[in-house]
């Protein structure tokens, strides 16, 4: 194995990725700032779209380079282990990203809302928000409670949602969909390891369909929330935590489903062998991670 670790000579991929990501971020910044300032002549969205397209293009070329190198036999067992470490810790970093939002949810529910309602150690804050009561989901915001009990309307008046999303409807269906998709992707993996191409194709296909159906239902739930339940990003901290957690999760489901779709196409092209298919394995790890996050969401955002 000595001297066999492949170090690419030079590469234009990273600098392209940097420029693309910077254009995307500049576009996003311009877009958001102009949106907030009411500037209708903004070209931020165009810049963002160009940047995003460039990012996707670079990703395409980068991954295809890695795949071609692998097919050319340049990736030693040791190099492949680097990819394994890389993917594993990338997923861990994603876990920590979600941990920030879960942490915010727990903090709000355990500390800030009870304190604002006059309970607990720092309950004295309630004197600023007379009439506010501790409920979760937070239907009546402190600003609303203050307005109702004293007639004072604060500058940042925030209205709570009209209704809560019951966990037993779409969320339960979505839980079943996503949990079974974790099983199907495992079946696909078993099929691949046993050299059963058909099983791989079918089970992976099923996983992808389950994933996209999940995203569809999630979209329907959002439409419902906005049009009928009065639950929006702007309806107090319940809406904020709800949409940020489910939104980022939904985004990750989309990314995972796209990854699996590409793996499905790669499988059809015969890229994977029973003992050599880390691309697929990495995508399936990601999928299981997305699934575990959903279980946390279902428990703490919807049920409890």
């Amino acid at each position, binding site marked *: 194995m000595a*001297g066999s670790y492949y170090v690419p000579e030079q590469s234009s991929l990273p600098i392209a990725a940097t420029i693309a990501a910077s254009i995307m971020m500049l576009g996003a910044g311009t877009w958001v*700032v102009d949106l907030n300032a009411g500037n209708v002549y903004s070209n931020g969205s165009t810049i963002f779209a160009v940047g995003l397209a460039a990012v996707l293009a670079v990703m395409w070329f980068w991954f295809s380079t890695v795949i071609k190198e692998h097919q050319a036999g340049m990736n030693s067992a040791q190099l492949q282990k680097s990819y394994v470490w890389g993917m594993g810790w990338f997923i861990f970093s994603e876990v920590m990203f979600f941990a*920030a939002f879960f942490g915010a949810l727990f903090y709000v529910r355990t500390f800030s809302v009870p304190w604002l309602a006059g309970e607990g150690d720092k309950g004295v804050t309630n004197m600023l928000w007379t009439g506010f009561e501790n409920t979760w989901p937070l239907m009546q915001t402190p600003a609303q409670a203050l307005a109702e009990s004293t007639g004072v309307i604060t500058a940042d008046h925030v209205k709570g949602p009209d209704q809560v999303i019951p966990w037993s409807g779409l969320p339960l269906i979505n839980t079943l969909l996503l949990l079974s998709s974790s099983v199907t992707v495992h079946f696909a993996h078993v099929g691949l390891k046993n050299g059963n191409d058909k099983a791989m194709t079918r089970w992976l296909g099923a996983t992808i369909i389950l994933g996209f159906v999940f995203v569809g239902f999630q979209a329907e739930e959002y439409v419902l929330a906005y049009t009928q339940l009065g639950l929006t990003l702007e309806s107090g901290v319940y809406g904020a935590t709800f949409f940020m957690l489910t939104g980022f999760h939904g985004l990750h489901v989309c990314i995972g489903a796209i990854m699996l779709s590409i793996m499905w196409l790669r499988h059809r092209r015969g890229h994977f062998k029973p003992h050599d298919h880390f691309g697929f394995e990495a995508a399936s790890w990601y999928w299981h991670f997305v699934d575990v996050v959903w279980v946390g969401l279902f428990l703490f955002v919807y049920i409890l």
Partner: protein
Amino acid sequence: MSAVIDNHTHDHHGPKKGFMRWILTTNHKDIGAMYLWFSFAMFFVGGAFALVIRSELFQPGLQMVEPEFFNQMTTMHGLIMVFGAVMPAFVGLANWLIPVMIGAPDMALPRLNNWSFWLLPFSFAILLSSLFMEGGGANYGWTFYAPLSTTYAPPSVTFFIFAMHLMGVSSIMGSINIIATIFNMRAPGMTLMKMPMFVWSWLITSYLLVAVIPVLAGVITMMLMDINFGTSFFDAAGGGDPVLFQHVFWFFGHPEVYIMILPAFGIVSHIIPAFARKTLFGYSSMVYATSSIAFLSFIVWAHHMFTVGIPLVGELFFMYATMLIAVPTGVKVFNWVTTMFRGSMTFETPMLFAIAFVVLFTIGGFSGLMLAVAPADFQYHDTYFVVAHFHYVLVPGAIFAIFAAMYYWLPKMTGNMYPEWLGKLHFWLSFVGMNLTFFPMHFIGLAGMPRRIPDYNMQFADFNMVASVGAFAFGITQLIFLAVVVITIRGGKKAEAKSWEGADGLEWSLPSPAPYHSFSTPPEVK
């Protein structure tokens, strides 16, 4: 893809010619050097901002800048020094040194490595450009507490957030790369407990980075939503809480502090044994102490928030947990001192910086212990005492360690010895300038001078004047270091493979300068 097929010939290539070498490179030494130069440039930019602050504070009253601009200077100074100077310098050293210390051909993921670097200049260009935007640049302190950074922030805050996201991507990718390198690329025979201390300290630092940078990404995303999309994470009117910002920020922020000091511990653990001509005292206790500090860093964050109004139980828990950190840190200081005990010491520039590190970092550690006492912190909080404390751990801590590392490994990097007298001059002027700047801040802080305010009471005038003089002396002194680096790159006495008599480690088995591709065949470690 023909360019990537020749996997057997590349070992014999030198670097490519021309400017594109630096843009397209996948070589860990090129990338490490770029990190170091970038960090040095940012050090001067952030230093210039610090001198604007010190100019304004030279005398009481407002004379140099508007208070709004003063706020932008304190904010930008902090952000640039933390994310632009100290962190990239350590990552640069990691890039340059870890592969040669563990006997690897390069970093585990070389292209990702290049990406991690090049994201930085772009993100800092965005961050610095915010100074010229409508409403001014970031002015909410480097800790960007809500609601200063949300409700009352200038519009440029959105660009600040996206710039921070890019920096975060760079840090996460960089640290994943380091973890993969250390676990996967060690030469045969190099077990974990045979790894050099610098490698150990970076392994632990990488874990901290992978764990907390995503949390930073989370908190700035919440800011983005609060500012632009009407959420109420940090707004009590909607049931949120500005204190939530501080909790999430410091959950990132406190490990971040250790991200900036653990690699320094590693560096000093190389240099003191080399110039005391003894092996490091208590190697395994060093490893365990570093791990303990890293673990504790996750459960002490609210000691930054003693006065914000947290429950008494919280104050007590975070006070005691914070004090616990003194134990593993004490182990390390003890080990460094014991390494020197009865050693045959010489005092070349790296050793001078390393000894100054031990002494002055310990002063910063002790003032940290004072700040950890919750009831006392109510007096110290947000005063210049805090400024003195963290500058004592960051300037003679992190930055002196970086200087020490540069002097120590510069012969290996350039193949030439630096001019020793110039190095010593740099050290002594830095040492005096730094203490002149920050030591008086202890006194004015204890006397009650608040930080981040452009004007102050007459009673603080003398010490502030001393601090400003010291700051300019320290700042100008750094040009000497620039001269040292340039002179050493261009020539000087040729360095031997083992540039220091007491140096130990695989990097000294390579010729100086180290060949472009270091260990194409892994060495055997016994």
